[in-house]
């Protein structure tokens, strides 16, 4: 064979083998991380984890108060962030679609989407914790809601832009004002996609640690008082994993497994929602 062809084929073979190897490498980490997580986490998983409080080192206990705290903080964050995000996304896609302000907001929103979450924590510390004089569950919820907002804005806008214009025109020709068209026609058409956005936002914040470090802090005891420091799973994992006590470390692994399963379940559900919408 012509040596030029042989050389080109060889180079192609090398490059293709490398890209195959890179994919195996990337997937390998996923398997490795999940494998270790299940191995370490399952060994500590029992009913006690969900029914008992975090223990002092050396004694038995569970993760009830951080699980509860995470649920409360996350729910409130979603309750604050979702309406704001949906409204803002609505403006970008509907009222202000051709506005110059829209492209600025979209740009800023995209930056907020990947801004370092620890900076969000510092921001909320400056505006809430410092003036109030104490750490609180509210501050944690606000910090997380600031992460929810850009995610929901983005998906709401994208999904509303996918709604075909004839739908809007048909509704408008019946004499419906804009607000009704948006709420009763566009929202209904984009519902699955918007729900996906909310689910992805929940998945995103349920593992966030950095913004909670100096907002909701931590609490060793059972507390549902939003004005007091509140325990949350990621913070407890952080504290327990870095402790020298073996039983704390085991609980950290179990907590890590719970968070990961939650996040994976949420993102797979979100994906299933969008793909079933595409097929229908």
């Amino acid at each position, binding site marked *: 064979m012509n040596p030029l062809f042989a050389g080109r084929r060889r180079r*192609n073979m090398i*490059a*293709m083998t*490398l*890209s*195959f190897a*890179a*994919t195996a490498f*990337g*997937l390998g*980490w*996923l398997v490795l*991380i999940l494998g270790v*997580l299940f191995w*370490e986490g399952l060994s500590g998983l029992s009913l006690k984890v969900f029914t008992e409080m975090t223990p002092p080192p050396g004694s038995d206990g569970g993760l009830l108060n951080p699980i509860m705290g995470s649920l409360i903080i996350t729910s409130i964050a979603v309750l604050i962030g979702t*309406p704001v*995000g949906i*409204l*803002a996304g609505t*403006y970008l896609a509907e*009222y*202000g679609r051709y506005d110059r*302000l829209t492209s600025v*907001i979209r*740009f*800023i*929103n*995209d*930056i*907020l989407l*990947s*801004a*370092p*979450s*620890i*900076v969000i924590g*510092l921001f909320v510390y*400056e*505006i809430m914790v410092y003036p109030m004089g104490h750490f609180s569950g509210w501050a944690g919820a606000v910090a997380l809601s600031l992460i929810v907002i*850009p995610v929901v*804005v983005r998906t709401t806008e994208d999904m509303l832009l996918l709604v075909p214009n004839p739908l809007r025109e048909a509704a408008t020709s019946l004499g419906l*004002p*804009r*607000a*009704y068209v948006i709420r009763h026609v566009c929202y209904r058409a984009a519902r699955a996609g918007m729900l996906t956005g909310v689910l992805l936002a929940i998945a995103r914040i*349920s*593992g966030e*640690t*950095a913004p909670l*470090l*100096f907002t909701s*802090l931590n609490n060793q005891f059972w507390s549902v008082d939003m004005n007091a420091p509140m325990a949350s799973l*990621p913070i407890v*994992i*952080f504290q327990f*994993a870095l402790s020298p006590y073996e039983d704390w470390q085991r609980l950290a692994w179990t907590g890590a497994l719970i*968070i*990961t399963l939650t996040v994976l379940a949420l*993102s797979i559900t979100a*994906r299933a929602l969008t793909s079933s919408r595409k097929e229908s």
Partner: protein
Amino acid sequence: MVDMTAEGAAYSVAEPPSRMKILNRLRLTDTAFYWLTRLAAIGVLIILGGAIVALIDGSMLALREFGFSFLYTAHWNPVTEKFGAIAPIYGTLVTSLIAMLIAVPIGLMIAVFLTELCPASLRRPIGIAIELLAGIPSIIYGIWGLFVFAPFLQRTVQPFLIDVFGPIPVLSTIFAGPPYGIGMLTAGLILAIMVLPFITSISRDVFESVPPVLKEAAYGVGCTTWEVVRYVVLPYTRVGVIGGVMLGLGRALGETMAVTFVIGNAHRISASTLAPGTTISATIANEFTEAVGDLYSSSLVALGLILFVITFIVLAIARYMLMRLERKAA
């Protein structure tokens, strides 16, 4: 008709709502909804503006005390209250550099595999698997890095690096010192695993934006797959790929928890990547709640401000490039 008026009299004392009234109410809700959405959209700007103002306000004390020397001095002494940011800035840049050196080529190769080589039936599952890797919270990477990855590196990879590169002049300083396990190299490697999915999914998306006609023409004149990628796909998508890489870099610079676990939190600058160091985010995460004294916490907020400015610039460039590509595609 008679019935209806009787009903109206029975159920409402007021006159039945006139057409005008209904129209007015509709107009009112319409205007209200418009302003509500507009307000929420402006809220996004307020969040960013508020964050910048709050961070500047919080760091004022430190910036006034140290001035510009805060940026280039290396002291970090809570006892004498002397603070300088160069060690964490250095750590942030070095770990992110290591991460990008590893993640960019591998991420691009995975994207090539997904768009050019992979059988169509496997494309979606592999793509989803890679994206799941992006969904794993960073604290999971942290705990895994601390208990599994760092000890593994300490036992195998690090002694190997020290042995192999020991006799070579420059490399021996980069890989010098005892294998601690934790350190800047470990943090960089974990960051690489974390940003890999971001780079992969964005470059896959931009690779898919190449018009098939271009690729088919190249295949038609006898190019190999690699040549199509190298001379058609990559030049066409260069802007988008750079955007994706910058987006990954933005993530790496600001990543907190995964790094905090494995960096070692030592305020010093050492040429060896095996030595413990610190990053901006790790310093804040580790020290902020324990910071005693206004100057100490103010210095930490100033670190946060620096991090925010750096990532803002990087992310802005990334978004700008991706926007340019979108405009080209449209």
